[in-house]
């Protein structure tokens, strides 16, 4: 069988942690891991041949001769540090379950080849929260012993912190499959999901909104665990720009929807605030109204 991983270099790494991300809602996980990759000045060392899983992104033809075909990249980077790290960034998620499972295995096999015993994935948690609140990070470990480790972390919550329904949920795409496959292979894994307000996840004007606030929350949760410190100033500048954009969009929503969404300012998963938290019925009503609004084309008020 064809080896689907191309190794450009074989760095010497000691028990590295593997951190993986793909595009998803608000590109939250991808932006966090990509930022980490850039700030840590990592070095690319391997990639997955992605042509079996994706349609080509582009073709290069010169004077009538096919020169090159470009596919969505799936690359590995490393950083030697107090805690050695392998970062993996995928440019696209495959559609088929079989392909998702294949890629998850390829990613983990590279990690295992370098002695990796722990994996982190990062993504988005669509939540009924307001955009003026700091996004929390939902941590989902792949085994019991990691629960105590993530419990009580600053701004980090477990699914069980969310009330009665909290113990159940799902992680779509590679973020979940990678952790499940890691468990099968005996690796510890934690998925960190940065909260994105449900209505931001629905904004698409003219392209899906990015939500760097949540990426920052993920990085704040992740970096101490990786024993690295990074400068967040660039991300903060981007957050400031995005906040203005989001606020403008918010102000252009119909007043009735804004009033409903304003209730989300008092939402909390961990414990009730002094102000009365919204009820589950109200939460569902808000979600329904926002969904209806966007289903109708999401026309913004002038």
């Amino acid at each position, binding site marked *: 069988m064809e080896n689907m991983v191309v190794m450009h270099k074989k760095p010497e790494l000691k028990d590295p942690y593997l951190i993986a991300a793909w595009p998803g809602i608000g590109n939250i996980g991808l932006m966090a891991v990509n930022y980490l990759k850039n700030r840590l000045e990592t070095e690319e060392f391997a990639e997955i041949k992605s042509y079996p899983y994706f*349609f*080509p992104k582009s*073709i*290069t033809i*010169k*004077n*009538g*001769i*096919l020169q090159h075909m470009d596919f969505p990249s799936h690359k590995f980077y490393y950083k030697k540090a107090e805690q050695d790290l392998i970062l993996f960034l995928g440019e696209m998620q495959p559609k088929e379950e079989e392909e998702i499972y294949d890629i998850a295995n390829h990613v983990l096999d590279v990690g295992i080849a370098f002695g990796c015993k722990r994996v982190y994935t990062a993504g988005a948690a669509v939540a009924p929260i307001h955009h003026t609140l700091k996004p929390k990070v939902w941590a989902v470990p792949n085994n019991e012993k990691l629960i105590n480790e993530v419990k009580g972390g600053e701004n980090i919550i477990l699914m069980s912190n969310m009330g009665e329904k909290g113990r159940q949920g799902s992680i779509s795409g590679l973020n979940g499959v990678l952790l499940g496959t890691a468990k099968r292979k005996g690796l510890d894994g934690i998925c960190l999901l940065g909260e994105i307000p449900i209505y931001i996840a629905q904004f698409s004007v003219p392209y899906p909104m990015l939500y760097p606030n949540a990426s920052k929350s993920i990085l704040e949760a992740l970096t101490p665990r990786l024993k690295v410190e990074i400068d967040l100033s660039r991300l903060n500048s981007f957050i400031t720009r995005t906040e203005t954009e989001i606020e403008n969009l918010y102000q252009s929503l119909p007043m009735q929807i804004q009033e409903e969404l304003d209730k989300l300012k008092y939402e909390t998963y961990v414990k009730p605030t002094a102000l009365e938290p919204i009820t589950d019925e109200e939460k569902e009503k808000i979600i329904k109204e926002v969904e209806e609004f966007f289903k109708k084309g999401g026309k913004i008020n002038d």
Partner: protein
Amino acid sequence: MIKKTPVLSAPFLIAGWKPDAGEVGWNVFEYLSSQIQGEEFAEIEPLGFFPLNEVQIANDLVQFPEAKFYAYEEKDLVLFKSYQPTSKIYKFLNLFLDLAENLKVKEIYTIGGLISTVAHTKERKIYTVVNTPYLKEEIGNYPLQTNLSHEGPTSMSGFLLWMAMKRYIPGISFWIDVPFYLSGRVDPKATKTILEFLKTRFKLSVDLKLLDQEIEKQEEKIALLNTQNPEIGEYMAKLENNVNLAQEEMDKIINAVENYL
């Protein structure tokens, strides 16, 4: 799935897809099969490659995806007429190439429409892309545009050509101009231009008169549209004189042709 092994020595394998701009590839094969006797001998079964949970209906008929190989033993030619797969494309194209290798195919040709700003009344150019440089010389004597340069989105044929290259199977993609306002329907002029090339290339005895009638009919209809709708007539005249149209003008032509034809 191979139903029968045809007697072929080193055949050319020509592939065409549906959907396709101007339905060129599909229509070329339909026309060819109405004129010369070929035999279906293999197919790629649709399960896994096409959405089968909802079967489409068009022109009162059930539309079911198919991907079939037809042999023309006398001409040492194989045609592959297929819907474009939407899932596991790499696997699908590999099945195609496995059969091509089993048949010891000499070269793979693909046929497709290229959405263009050419007017329907104008001569259609055929552009070629080869995956092996020497093929350019081989087709050098035909009226083809062999120096296309492009960097950007690709197609099923482009992907197939690249995969064939990885297996060292020579291949050429043939792309014919299809006016943007005919891209969603049959373009008989594009079909005829491709057939003229194939006829010469493979010495096929194919009568193209029926296509001439279709071309005439389509041109008459569009001429009538131009008369009845002077605004569209003006834009069409611009196209015929190679004047660039604004997007809005092109959209108006598309809508008018869609409603009228």
